[in-house]
């Protein structure tokens, strides 16, 4: 049995192609049923996110013919490409050369890297693990997940958990809005119940405000010179509108200020902010200046208890965080390697199971038959003695089968070892007659 992955991602295909090959949730079950109906493919999972579409299959090992193209070479690739082209109505030649295909052991490594967010556009992002889990649950509900993919995905989840808990890959936010939120939390603690003031009616301000509201901020105030634009934005965000001449008053009531006007001169001057801070008795004020040119006079950053971050500062922090995450990659890869090794070992044992079961059953049957014959020839034995003879037979069988079973369990079990297993099967069981 093999685990085969075929797919495209942000590294191999542009967004327009990714969009055309992406699956909506309701499309997945039908595709999975068609996939597992293909000869030689017994299990399947589809992972479709904005950055990747990947098809995971548990497939029979290909016959020993030359593999057909693509990284990693894949016997099943052509059939999956055809099915994908047919399902998504995209000609195969448009994406075939952008597809990658992996087989064991690379496929398992790839799955673990995807789940751990090492293959993501934003390194260390947390969402991809949830998306992989969701893809797995959907396939499970469709009934296209069996022992192999189930085991592989479960181990991928635990590898991802290890990567996140044992390294700092997910510790530092890397997007500008998440950096702004993290900084605000460092100053103000929990953002629940806080008040946000948006100065200006720009979209970027609204987006950042939404991100802060998602952290529990309750009240939003909007101040803008153009009242109608302020009212539109306020409706969108369920916010209150303050007239521009009451800006100081609004500043006194707020915890976070997001400024994003198009004014050519600073809207918030140092002297104004100093008097605001005095009126607030220096209660901390977190100011995000997203405007270019800047809305808040840079010298205001020197005021005690006022924390001013402009676009450059936020981007600088985000870049620093990306570097910190990159520094963790080696440690993550080390964990992935350990987990991949464990998973491949489990797959080998899984492959050996039928042979072990067959051997155990046959030897037990022989033992039972010979025991019955022997006991028939010894009618004078009492119950205690009969029990002793049964135990003796059982012990001898167990000891005799111990060495070959251990050898089978410990054999690496893939491809070339199939010959060894077949040899063992013939040696110990005969030709199967």
């Amino acid at each position, binding site marked *: 049995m093999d685990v085969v992955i075929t797919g495209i991602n942000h590294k191999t295909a542009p967004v327009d192609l990714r969009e055309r090959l992406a699956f909506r949730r309701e499309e997945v079950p039908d595709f999975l049923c068609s996939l597992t109906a293909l000869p030689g493919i017994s299990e399947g999972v589809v992972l479709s996110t904005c950055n990747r579409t990947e098809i995971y299959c548990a497939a029979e090992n290909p016959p020993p013919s030359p593999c057909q193209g693509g990284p990693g070479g894949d016997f099943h690739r052509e059939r999956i490409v055809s099915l994908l082209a047919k399902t998504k109505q995209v000609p195969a030649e448009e994406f075939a050369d952008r597809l990658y295909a992996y087989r064991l052991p690379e496929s398992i490594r790839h799955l673990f890297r995807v789940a751990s967010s090492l293959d993501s556009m934003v390194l260390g992002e947390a969402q991809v693990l949830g998306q992989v889990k969701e893809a797995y649950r959907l396939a499970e509900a469709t009934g296209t997940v069996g022992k192999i993919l189930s085991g592989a995905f479960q181990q991928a989840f635990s590898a991802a958990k290890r990567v996140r*808990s044992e390294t700092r890959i997910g510790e530092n936010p890397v997007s500008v809005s998440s950096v702004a939120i993290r900084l605000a939390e460092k100053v103000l603690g929990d953002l629940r119940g806080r008040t946000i003031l948006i100065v200006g009616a720009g979209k970027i301000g609204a987006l950042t405000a939404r991100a802060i509201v998602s952290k529990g901020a309750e009240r939003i105030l909007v101040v803008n010179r153009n009242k109608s634009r302020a009212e539109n934005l306020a409706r969108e965000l369920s916010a209150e509108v303050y007239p521009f001449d009451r800006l100081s008053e609004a500043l006194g009531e707020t915890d976070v200020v997001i400024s994003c006007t198009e004014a050519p001169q600073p809207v918030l001057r140092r002297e104004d902010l100093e008097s605001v801070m005095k009126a607030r008795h220096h209660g901390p004020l977190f100011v995000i200046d997203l405007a270019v040119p800047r809305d808040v006079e840079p010298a205001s950053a020197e005021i005690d208890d006022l924390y001013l971050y402009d676009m450059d500062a936020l981007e600088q922090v985000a870049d620093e965080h990306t570097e910190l995450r990159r520094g963790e990659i080696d440690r993550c890869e080390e964990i992935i390697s350990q987990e991949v090794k464990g998973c491949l070992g489990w797959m080998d044992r899984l492959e050996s199971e039928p042979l072990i079961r067959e051997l155990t059953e046959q030897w037990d049957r022989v033992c039972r038959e010979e025991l019955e014959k022997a006991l028939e020839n010894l009618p004078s034995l009492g119950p205690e003695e009969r029990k002793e003879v049964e135990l003796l037979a059982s012990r001898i069988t167990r000891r005799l089968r111990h060495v070959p079973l251990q050898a089978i369990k410990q054999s690496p079990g893939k491809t070339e070892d199939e010959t060894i297993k077949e040899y063992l099967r013939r040696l110990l069981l005969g030709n199967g007659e």
Partner: protein
Amino acid sequence: MQWQRTLIHTGFLLLLGSGVSYLHYLLRGSEKVQKVGLSLFVLGTVSSAFAFILRYVEYATLYPGAMVIGPCETLLLLSFSVSLFTLVGILATKIRLLPLVAAPLIGILTVSAAFTLRVEATPRENLIGSFPIVHILSGILSYSAFFLLFTVSVIYLVVERELKRKHLGPILERVPSLRDLSRTQSLFLGLGFLFLTLLILLGAVQVWKVQQPRVFPDPKILFALATWLVYGILLGLRLKTRLLGHRMAVAAIWASLLIVLTFLSELPWNGWHNFLRRRPPREESLSNRDVSNPKGGRNF
């Protein structure tokens, strides 16, 4: 003595381990190491507390009813109360890094206690009953809380500086937010002021009982009253939310200077009030003393 030494050394090693674990947590962020650090901190605290109890039981047996407290006992009590408040701080504000700053100080106090183990305290015949020990204990608890207030204020200024410099590195990720630090400041300010008030009230009762006429030239009392006044003002302003953030941190650091002055003021009298100073004759030292008559001194 052997048991006390073993317990003190064990406590010191545990606290050292705790400090190292917390440092590792700060640098690498492993939650497991942080939990190990906390466990070592608790065990170290318990070990030092047992050392104090053994020491005190020994004195209580030798001098029943008498007030016996020397440098070793004071240091052990100080280390215990700083540990206690650190644990209170962790529970109340969830600032898990407090032991990182508390463990080195407690370690120093504990190891100093080990060095002073051989210094035997002499009983103070003029301090009989439970008032003096509660008075001293209140003082130690109050100064421990103020020490932690000082520490938290320093952390506040460091975190604030890093935020102003727009650095949010991995270490800053693990330090608490300014708001949490501010809440911790309030907690320690309140606790410190409460115990300081208790200290002064109990002291006043004791002075009234013994009708001591030479109280007010005593610098220790003067500094204690000044400390009470300053911290009282800080607490009042804090409760009215008129002293927040950076200013509160700076004020708390300056106020801690008063604590240092209080300690310096009592150095000439070995930590006692000047009107309680007593120079026992050499033959009355603990080793040569007739322990069957421990209360053989003058009583007020």
